């Protein structure tokens, strides 16, 4: 037998400018990764190629796919999954978990305030026009009391590790954050392919998400309901996140409905079953605000339910997340998060914010326009990594274009220093070897009436293109299983 030890990592190239999560500053494997490194190093590349294709077919057979519409046919593809897991030890996790809950709570209080007394706006801690000019601000929500007092029941917070080894929040997603099913599928796939590695680590489970979600939904039931009837509403099976919707409904044991399965009568919501109408009390909605109710929002929406919003305003049905939460995950509001946390909770933020320049402020606009090449320019109201420009990747001509766009709509853009996302060894199909790739982390936080929960895991997303900093799956990103270790 030839010595195949660490054949897998022998060609791994470390760029010292990047923060590699498995090596320390002296180039040694960090203790927590040592065992994993040895186990993986014991495989030959050929083993690994086989395992990788097995993992892929596991996703395929589970039907965890998305559709790509080609010229004359529809192709099914799987989301790329990397077999080398990311490990977060219990101390680091504690910070992430506490920080995630802190942000969710502050955002909830903020939303209550801006749809009621508006104290934070009157005291000019957050500028009024920032809120009223937001495309996601819903006038209709003014004075509405959501059952249980909760707006952002489910939050997805995107966190990165910077060169300095500290965690920074990139954005809060409190509309319909998706991805949690991939956390669970990634775990399943890794277990199927490499169950042996789990013997050496005490890892927290991720399969308890659904039970906590159901607890949450039941905790925010409308007044006067004893045992609430909860459902998940989906735009339908052609939605790219349909797998997730059906997964959550299944694991919670509740119905997965479409708008056409529901109707409203006397401001109560019912679903059409084989035994006639059945009242619905709590709806975990995975359709956007504007499609919820054609009578109130977009009249051409075929996804929603006529009269739903009126039933909601009457307090007869709960919507999770509440309509109008999008105003708070606006990237311009993000920049006020440290102030928002201090204002409502009287605490210092646990997770750092990335410094942000508002193009709506003349002094900052000037700085941004002159330093585009050192900045990341983001539109404030887009999700999925769309519309982002990274300054040092732009040609002179592109810079001019971005400058022109910002000048035309300064409110639409914010800018941040180019953050260096940490890198993690990732198996690359093309070269059949491990290479450094940038990663981030999305955590999933649940906030209910007297209930808070952060899923101990989260979605580590990987930018598969070399050097790419955008990890969103819509931009060709993959993901990794993420292990949160139990306290020793």
């Amino acid at each position: 037998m030839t010595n195949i030890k660490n054949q897998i990592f022998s060609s791994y190239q470390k760029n010292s400018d990047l923060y590699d999560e498995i090596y320390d500053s002296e180039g040694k494997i960090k203790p927590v990764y040592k065992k994993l490194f040895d186990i993986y190093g014991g495989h030959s590349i050929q083993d690994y190629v086989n395992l990788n294709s097995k993992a892929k077919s596991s996703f395929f057979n589970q039907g965890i796919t998305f559709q790509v519409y080609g010229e004359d046919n529809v192709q099914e593809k799987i989301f790329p999954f990397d077999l080398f897991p990311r490990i977060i030890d219990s101390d680091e996790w504690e910070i992430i978990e506490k920080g995630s809950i802190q942000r969710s709570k502050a955002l909830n209080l903020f939303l209550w305030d801006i749809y009621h007394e508006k104290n934070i706006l009157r005291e000019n801690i957050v500028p009024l026009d920032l809120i009223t000019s937001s495309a996601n601000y819903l006038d209709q929500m003014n004075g509405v009391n959501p059952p249980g007092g909760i707006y952002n029941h489910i939050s997805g917070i995107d966190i990165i590790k910077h060169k300095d080894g500290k965690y920074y929040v990139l954005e809060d997603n409190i509309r319909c954050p998706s991805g949690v099913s991939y956390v669970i599928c990634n775990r399943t796939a890794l277990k199927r392919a490499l169950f042996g590695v789990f013997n050496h680590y005490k890892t927290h489970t991720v399969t308890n998400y659904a039970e906590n979600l159901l607890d949450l939904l039941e905790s925010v039931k409308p007044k006067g309901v004893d045992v609430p009837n909860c459902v998940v509403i989906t735009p339908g099976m052609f939605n790219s996140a349909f797998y997730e919707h059906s997964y959550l409904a299944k694991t919670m044991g509740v119905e997965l409905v479409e708008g056409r399965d529901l109707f409203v009568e006397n401001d109560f919501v019912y679903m059409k079953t084989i035994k006639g109408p059945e009242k619905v009390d709590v709806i975990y909605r995975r359709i956007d605000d504007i499609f919820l109710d054609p009578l109130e929002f977009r009249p051409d929406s075929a996804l929603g339910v006529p009269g739903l919003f009126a039933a909601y305003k009457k307090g007869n049905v709960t919507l999770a997340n509440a309509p109008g939460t999008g105003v708070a995950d606006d990237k311009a509001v993000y920049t006020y998060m440290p102030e928002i946390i201090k204002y409502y909770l009287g605490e210092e933020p646990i997770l750092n914010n990335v410094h942000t320049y508002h193009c709506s402020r003349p002094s900052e606009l000037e700085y941004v326009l002159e330093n585009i090449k050192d900045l990341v320019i983001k539109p404030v109201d887009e999700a999925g990594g769309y519309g982002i420009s990274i300054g040092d990747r732009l040609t002179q001509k592109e810079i001019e274009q971005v400058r022109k766009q910002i000048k035309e709509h300064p409110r639409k853009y914010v800018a941040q220093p180019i953050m260096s996302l940490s890198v993690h060894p990732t198996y690359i199909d093309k070269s059949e070897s491990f290479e450094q790739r940038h990663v981030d982390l999305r955590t999933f936080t649940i906030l209910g009436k007297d209930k808070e929960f952060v899923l101990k895991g989260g979605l580590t997303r990987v930018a598969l293109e070399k050097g790419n900093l955008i990890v969103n799956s819509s931009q060709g990103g993959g993901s990794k299983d993420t292990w949160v270790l139990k306290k020793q």
Partner: protein
Amino acid sequence: MLARVANNLFWMGRYIERSEHIARYMNVNYFSSLDAPNQVSQNRQFVLRSMLFMVGAPEQDPNKILKEEDVLFKIGLDPNFEFSILNNVKQARENANSARDLISTELYEAINKFYHFVLKYPKEIFVKSGLYDFTINVSEMSAILRGKIRGTLLHDSIYAIILMGVNIERATQVTRMINTKYNDALLTQGNHDIMFSKSAEWATLLKCAESYDMMRRFYKKTPTSISTLEFLILNPNCPRSVMNALNQVYKNVKILNPEKRYNKNSTAFLIGRVRAEYQYKYIEEIEQDIKSFIENILKSLDDISNKINEEFFNY
């Protein structure tokens, strides 16, 4: 359960069952014709026409020479032919997709695997040398699906609806096979002194319904028209008989509607009525006019399916 989803599950059951019967019909007919005892049955054109008749796309032009590869492709893998096995499996999966939250992971994975198997099966290989492999796999995978349905689902209304779909489709497909083979037996009679009642087509029919061995055990005689029809239509213990399927449908509708005395407009009442009719029929009655008998069964099954639709899926 949502009415819309119930409808999808009902059809999932039907499409799974349908693809299996078509696959087995292709397999048995093709391979038993290779060394069939008479020239008509051995004739390739005869077999290909029989297959097309069975899937509801009979070739109208009696003089047209059919190309074997074209016919096999059409019935097996043609994405543009509504009744191809590929499209049946596709429909089964699409219906399962919309009810993914209600069925077990195990069942869904099995359906999904089935779909990818059919989708990826190379067309060239299928029409040249893969007929046996492909159709056997389709049969086996549908058997696995039935096992997963029985073994991994809660035996409640969801299960009842799927099984009603499966059994109505089974009765329909078995009746269609009887119809096709009845026609084939008529066509072969008179050739080389073959008698209609003793035609080799009856043995083929039994094999198409996976019932040949048990039929031999039951009658201990070579199959004739009368014993074959009796076995496949009236014998309640033959799992592929129309009678057995009706009993299953009746059993399952009771899960949906547990009342003791049924309203005369209910599905349960209609199923009970049709079932009672066949329970007290004897084969000599049927033999007098097989053609109208077949038409009657198909109509009764259609009526039941429409009634289910009206009572459970339409809100």
